């Protein structure tokens, strides 16, 4: 059984079909970059995998949990599949330390000391040890995003989902977040990331999925797919984003 | 409970109720006009760079908003005559209500002024609109649109508030209730009926105001 298995996923918002039959699998340790035009359904796909959206038909299995079964334990699934959003979504009323500790305490039932220790380690890992007591509104966008990554990593998920996590950042802050991502990748984390950073996809991802109009249009090894696109759609997409 | 509700006993007083409704509406409408006029003057004073204008405006607004209408009403109706200014109940009501509304509407209007952004005016002029066109389409229309909902709910609130002037013997709708009560001794029925009449007026005005909003602001911007 693969870590992630999607079988013929269909998802509509009202009368608009956004995902038109997505099937794919993903193995432990893989790093998959999802690219595609705005509106092609990338975010929706990630949100379905994390159970934030329900699908009309198809089967979703993540880390041994069938998300599409009625009564599926979505909270358990989400503990195994961490997710980081474009807009950081830190909890504004909690300090950095407490942001990271919250789910450790509530979901993983750690003691305060255990949770604090882990939180400190994770925040240090993203290079923000000196910001533990700060509140989100005192941090730059890049710093907030790094905290969001630490918060998710602290849950020790089997899989991490990243949705355009650098798109809301000023250009000079993108680098620091990508560096953190590279570090996470090196440690062998299984990752699925939606990104517009083609160089990052080429260098860090094992595999690239190109989505087009709600379908997987190309799916292959990262360098090969990006350097030698097989379809006209991917070619024109790449020339549009690279120039 | 073995009380016999006798709403029928109120039937002979239909014309009093109608008179009351009419006076309530007149009072509300005239107060709205006077209150807005006062409010406009106060709002302009309160954004003026001169503190000689700003300060009295501020004091007026704070004094009115932090004291009950009924006390303001008593000062006008019972207090002013001791200074030689005698007023009938209905005119005292109109004055007190207008002064009261002036304070609240000045805050709404001020928010309307503040919603106007200079960059919008520049954008209008740079598109080749004349000063008058810019004022009408870029300044006035959006500003009115932004304060319209607040003004509409202020009007409904005002209409409900006019009931308070019955306490000095004004003969608007709630005053008529007291009169009918004194004739029929059917206090509960009278006040329940009158209170529900206000609900009817409220719903009618809310519908009217949203219809106007739709006609003036929504349909127009679609066309």
């Amino acid at each position, binding site marked *: 059984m693969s870590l992630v298995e999607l079988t013929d996923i269909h998802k509509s918002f009202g009368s608009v079909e956004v995902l038109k039959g997505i099937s794919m699998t993903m193995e432990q340790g893989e790093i998959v970059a999802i690219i595609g035009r705005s509106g092609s359904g990338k975010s929706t796909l990630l949100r379905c995998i994390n159970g934030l959206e329900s699908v009309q038909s198809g089967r979703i299995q993540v880390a041994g949990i069938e998300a599409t079964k009625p009564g599926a334990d979505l909270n358990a699934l*989400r503990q195994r599949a961490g997710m980081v*959003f474009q807009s950081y979504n830190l909890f504004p009323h909690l300090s950095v330390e407490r942001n990271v500790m*919250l789910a450790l305490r509530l979901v993983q039932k750690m003691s305060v000391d255990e949770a604090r220790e882990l939180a400190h380690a994770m925040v240090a890992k993203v290079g923000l040890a000196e910001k533990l007591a700060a509140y989100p509104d005192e941090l730059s966008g890049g710093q907030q995003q790094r905290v969001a990554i630490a918060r998710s990593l602290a849950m020790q998920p089997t899989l991490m989902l990243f949705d355009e996590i650098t798109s809301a950042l000023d250009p000079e802050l993108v680098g620091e977040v990508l560096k953190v991502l590279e570090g996470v990748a090196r440690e062998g984390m299984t990752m699925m990331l939606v990104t517009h950073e083609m160089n990052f996809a080429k260098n860090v991802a094992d595999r690239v999925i190109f989505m087009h109009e709600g379908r997987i249009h190309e799916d292959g090894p990262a360098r090969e797919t990006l350097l030698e696109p097989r379809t006209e759609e991917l070619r024109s997409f790449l020339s549009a984003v690279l120039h | 409970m073995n009380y016999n509700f006798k709403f029928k006993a109120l039937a002979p007083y239909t014309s009093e109720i109608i008179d009351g409704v009419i006076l309530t509406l007149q009072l509300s409408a005239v107060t709205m006009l006077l209150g807005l006029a006062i409010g406009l003057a106060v709002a302009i004073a309160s954004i003026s760079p001169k503190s000689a204008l700003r300060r009295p405006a501020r004091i007026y607004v704070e004094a009115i908003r*932090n004291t009950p209408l*009924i006390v303001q009403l008593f000062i006008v109706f*019972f207090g002013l005559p001791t200074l030689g200014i005698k007023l009938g109940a209905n005119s005292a009501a109109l004055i007190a209500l207008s002064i009261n509304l002036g304070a609240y509407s000045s805050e709404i209007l001020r928010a309307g002024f503040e919603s106007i952004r200079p960059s919008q005016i520049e954008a209008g002029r740079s598109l080749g609109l004349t000063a008058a066109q810019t004022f009408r389409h870029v300044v006035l229309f959006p500003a009115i649109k932004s304060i319209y909902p607040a003004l509409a709910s202020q009007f409904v609130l005002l209409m409900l508030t006019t009931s308070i002037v019955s306490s000095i013997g004004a003969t608007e709708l709630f005053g008529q209730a007291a009169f009918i009560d004194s004739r029929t001794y059917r206090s509960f029925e009278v*006040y329940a009926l009158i*209170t529900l009449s*206000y609900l009817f007026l*409220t719903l009618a005005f809310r519908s009217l105001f949203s219809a106007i909003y739709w006609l003036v602001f929504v349909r127009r911007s679609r066309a």
Partner: protein
Amino acid sequence: MIREFSLNDLVFMLEALRWTVGLAIIATIGGGALGIIVAVLRVVAFKPANWLAIGYINLVQGTPLLGQLFVFFFGLPLFGIQVDAWVAASLSLSIYASAFFGEIWRGSLQSVSQRQWEAGAALGLNYWQRLTHVVLPQALRISIAPTVGFLVQLVKNTSLAALIGFIELTRASQIITAATFAPLPVYTTAAALYFIICFSLSQFSQRLERRFHVTR
């Protein structure tokens, strides 16, 4: 016998002011408890509950408080409940407050972005944990200033209880006026007393507003 407006009268007014404040406190507590129910009924994912809450809010906000006061004052005895003016006043002011609190708190709850719910979900928090640890603490901060702001309305509106004979500040002023025929000084004094309470609350509310305006 006409007498002067004296220090004794002022003392009487200050004593009556305690009832103004007391009534406001009762209505805050009663209205607060009811208001929570209204807010919850307004937001739960169950249409009939939403309709019930909307109807209630419209009924309370669409009729004059004075009317509600009289309806309770004359209506409760018909159900065999003998009420003093203060009971009728407490009850109707509580109901009045509950509709406004309900709306203020619903607004605060809904102004916490959907993304905060999602961020909680993505960390595996269950619904209750998301509500109590993520959304409510933020909603509470947002609601403090408007809640205190509404208390100003409430304090002012306790004055209407005078019209059903409850002796709070306004009624006390009427009584003193009848004895002294000095309406101007009496009512101005009453206004000043109301002003002190309401202005302090307004200022406090604005301070809270500024303080909690930052997202934290």
